[in-house]
Each structure stands twice: as structure tokens, then as C-alpha cells.
């Protein structure tokens, strides 16, 4: 039969058995024990529990647990473990960073990912250069056929608004490159010589960038597609010097097909994107790779050393 007393009484009895009650509590509880059989039964239950625990088998250790010098020596080398673990963790983190860096820059893979990711600035440069390419041979050749070929190539390469016709015509520009190229082809001969400033005006008119990088690309890149032949309506002041500095360029440009020129321009844009931004990070990546290699070597030595110690 199980006694049924309150948790407080049970706790008092538990402490009473272990002589953990104060003098007054002890006296009070003993008085109650004389008067309450239920409380006495609960006390006996607690005593039985203690008896079972006390009577249970005391086990002897199955063998001696003395430590050998070998165990102690192996343990003595353990303070090196945290350093090696840290080296492994750092190597892993740096490896991940290098992978991410490679992905973002495309340096080690050889793929100009940044150039292909086509930031707006690069697209603007391409459009601007294409506009200049499309307009430049027109007064020299005075033939519609090369202009048509160029327009076709441009329409395949960059389907973006072309500013070629805006400097000469007052009519609103067409947003379609093929259409502007047709216009350029049909009216190529009588047009004035386009310059880089004309292209910049076209860009501003179309609202395609006009950022500092794009303008710098235009002004810094001499276009050998024009001759020093004076024209009535063009504004040759900003480009006069660069044009005179490259007198042999017009012949070369005349020999090249327009599509090839556009491809060259695109390659130049891609190279510029590849060899400006990533080169800044390349040293950082090389540094990380060197650190990664050092940490990996340290982890390898740690693994070999640990194996030997154990």
C-alpha cells in the first residue's frame, strides 16, 4: 500500500531520513509521526528506498585505470590540436573565398565573366563605338553597300538604339538599329563627316548613358575611320589631333569588312572590362591562394604528426 501524503511532507520526510532538518523541524515532524500513521508509512518507504540502494551491489573496477606514460605523452601533444583545427577551418574559408572570387572575376577560368555580365557601362560603350563605326565609312566610301553590311552586322551584334542619324537629320531617331542603318546606307554619300563629339551628342540625345566612363572611352579611343577631309557641318575641334596622329588608319579600315570592325570593337570592350577591374582583385586572390596553400600544408603536417603521436 502506497502512502498518500503531500509533496511538502514527502520532502520533509526525505530530509528527516538524511538528518537534514533543523532542530525545530525535527521535533515537529517526530510529533506528527506519532500521530499520523500515513506519515509513518511514507517514512518507511523512504527508508526502504535507501536500503535498496545501499544493499545493491558495490562493483569493483574491472581493471586498474592507471595511466601509462604513453597515454600521457599522447595527451601532452594535444595542445597543438586547436591550432591545427583553426588552420583547417581557415583553409576551408579561404578556399571558399577563392572559389567565389574566381566565379566573380573569371580570372582563372579565362572567361571574361564580367564582360559577359554586361554592366550598363559596357553596353553604352559598345553602342557608341558602333555608332561611330556605322557612320564613319559613309562619306569615305560613298557607297551604300558597305553601310548595309555594317548595319546588318550591328543589328546582329547589338539590338540597341543607334544614334547614327541624329546629328544630321532633324527627324526623330528610330530606336531600331536596322532602320537607322538603312537610312545611313541610303543617304551615306552627302553626309558630313561624323566625329566623336557627334557620337556623344547622339548618346545624350538617346539617353544611353553619357556616363564618365563611356565618354572617356569615346575620347580616349581614336577612331581611324575618318579622313582629314574638311566637312561643312561637323565639329572637328576635339578630335583633330588624334585623327592626324593616325594617318594610315583609313586605308586599313577601308580594307577591313565592317563586321570585322564591329567584332574588333566588341573584343576591345571585353578586354577593357577584363583587364581593368579584375586585375585589381587578382593580387588579392593570389595572396589568398598563397595563404590557403600555407594553411593546407600546415594541416597536412598536423595530420601526419598527429598520426605518428597516436
Amino acid at each position, binding site marked *: 500500500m502506497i502512502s498518500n501524503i503531500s509533496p511538502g511532507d514527502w520532502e520533509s520526510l526525505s530530509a528527516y531520513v538524511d538528518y537534514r532538518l533543523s532542530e525545530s523541524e525535527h521535533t515537529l515532524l517526530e510529533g506528527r509521526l506519532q500521530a499520523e500513521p500515513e506519515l509513518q508509512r511514507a517514512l518507511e518507504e523512504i527508508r526502504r528506498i535507501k536500503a535498496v540502494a545501499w544493499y*545493491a*551491489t558495490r562493483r569493483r*573496477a574491472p581493471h586498474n585505470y592507471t*595511466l601509462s606514460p604513453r597515454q600521457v605523452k599522447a595527451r601532452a601533444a594535444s595542445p597543438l590540436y586547436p591550432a591545427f583545427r583553426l588552420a583547417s577551418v581557415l583553409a576551408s574559408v579561404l578556399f571558399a573565398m577563392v572559389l567565389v572570387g574566381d566565379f566573380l572575376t573569371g580570372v582563372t577560368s579565362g572567361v571574361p565573366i564580367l564582360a559577359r555580365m554586361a554592366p550598363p557601362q559596357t553596353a553604352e560603350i559598345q553602342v557608341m563605338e558602333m555608332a561611330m563605326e556605322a557612320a564613319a565609312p559613309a562619306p569615305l566610301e560613298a557607297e551604300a553597300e558597305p553601310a548595309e553590311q555594317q548595319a546588318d552586322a550591328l543589328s546582329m551584334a547589338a539590338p540597341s538604339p543607334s544614334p547614327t542619324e541624329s546629328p544630321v537629320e532633324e527627324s526623330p531617331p528610330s530606336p531600331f538599329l536596322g532602320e537607322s542603318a538603312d537610312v545611313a546606307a541610303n543617304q551615306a554619300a552627302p553626309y558630313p563627316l561624323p566625329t566623336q563629339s557627334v557620337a556623344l551628342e547622339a548618346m545624350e540625345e538617346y539617353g544611353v548613358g553619357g556616363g564618365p566612363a563611356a565618354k572617356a572611352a569615346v575620347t580616349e579611343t581614336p577612331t581611324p575611320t575618318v579622313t582629314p577631309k574638311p566637312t561643312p557641318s561637323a565639329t572637328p575641334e576635339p578630335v583633330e589631333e588624334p585623327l592626324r596622329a593616325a594617318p594610315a588608319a583609313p586605308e586599313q579600315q577601308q580594307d577591313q569588312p565592317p563586321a570585322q570592325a564591329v567584332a574588333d570593337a566588341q573584343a576591345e570592350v571585353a578586354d577593357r572590362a577584363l583587364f581593368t577591374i579584375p586585375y585589381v582583385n587578382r593580387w588579392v586572390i593570389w595572396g589568398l591562394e598563397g595563404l590557403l596553400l600555407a594553411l593546407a600544408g600546415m594541416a597536412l603536417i598536423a595530420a601526419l604528426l598527429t598520426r605518428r603521436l597516436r
Partner: protein
Amino acid sequence: MSMDEAGLIQAAQQGDLTAFNRLVLAYQDLVYNQAYRMMGETEAADDATQDAFISAYKHIRSYRGGSFKSWLLRIVTNACYDELRRRKRRPTQPLEPLDPENNEEMESARWMVDPGESPEEALERVELDRALQHCLDGLPDDFRTIVVLVDIQGMDYTEAAEVIKTPLGTVKSRLARARLRMRDCLQGVWELLPTAFRLVEERDL
């Protein structure tokens, strides 16, 4: 703490392995019993005891006086807690030892028999031991620890509080609740106790 023990501890703190091993021999039964009652298995208790002594040697410089017995029991109790937590994450089925006669698992606990006892006494002790361990295994870890420390290892409340780093009042209330659970679990095994431990009611009858 005896002067001999204090000297051994001091020597062990200075790296004397022989001195530490003398301490190990003095306390290994106590530590092993604590581990066995906490874990309920001989193999796990063996591992926990070994780990506890290795850890004790490793950290003996951090011992700052007080009861060396409590310090050792705290280490082995923590080792058992770690193992029990690991088992709760990856539960396994423990294996009973193989019977040398038929090479099958021994379902009864007769492999624990002390050869110095009579067969009847040995059987009763084994059954009581099994019942006790069964009830201990059913307790929460904190309750089991306090029952083992106080009722099996015979520590007082202050020592137990020092081992488990718990206030004295918590030890008192936790032990009372643990005993209440043990009472419910141990119903039916009282008759296995020797006559000296029988119930008052039975003696009155």
C-alpha cells in the same frame, strides 16, 4: 583529506604520474560505481571511467583544494552526461554479455553474481540490483545523479551539491522527488531485501 592524499595531489600537479596513479587506485572503484549507475552498462562505465581519469590528469592543475573525491565524481558525472546526451542524439540498443555455455546473450543478470555468496543470496542480490538499475534508468539524468550520489555513494547533501554545482535546497527537493519516483518503480521488489531491511508493516504483522 589526509596528508598523504594532499601530497599525492601536489606531486601529480607537478607532473608525477606515479603519484596520480596512486590516487587512481584509491578512487577507481568509487568512480567506476558512479559511472556504472549513471550509464547502466559495464562497457559504457568502463569508457567513462577511463575518460574521467585521463581528463582528471589533464586538468589536475586546475584543482584548487576541497574534496578530491567530489572533484573526481564531478568529472566522471560530466563524462556520463556527455555520453548520455550523445546517446539521446543517436540511440542504440545495448547488448547483453554472451553466455559462455551456449554463446547467446544472457538475459538475466546472473553474470553479475559474486562467487563468494550462496546461490540464493546471489540471486536475490542480482535481482535487487537489476530492479534498482531499472528504476534508476527510468529517472531523468539530474534525478538519477542525485540518487546515486546520496543513496548509493553515501555522500551528504553538501558534497552532492558540490559535485553537481547546485544549491543545497535544489539538492534536497530534487532528491525528494527522485525518491518519490523510485518508490513507485520499486513496488514489488521489497521482498527481495534481506530480513533486516524488511518493512515495518511486515515486522508488525
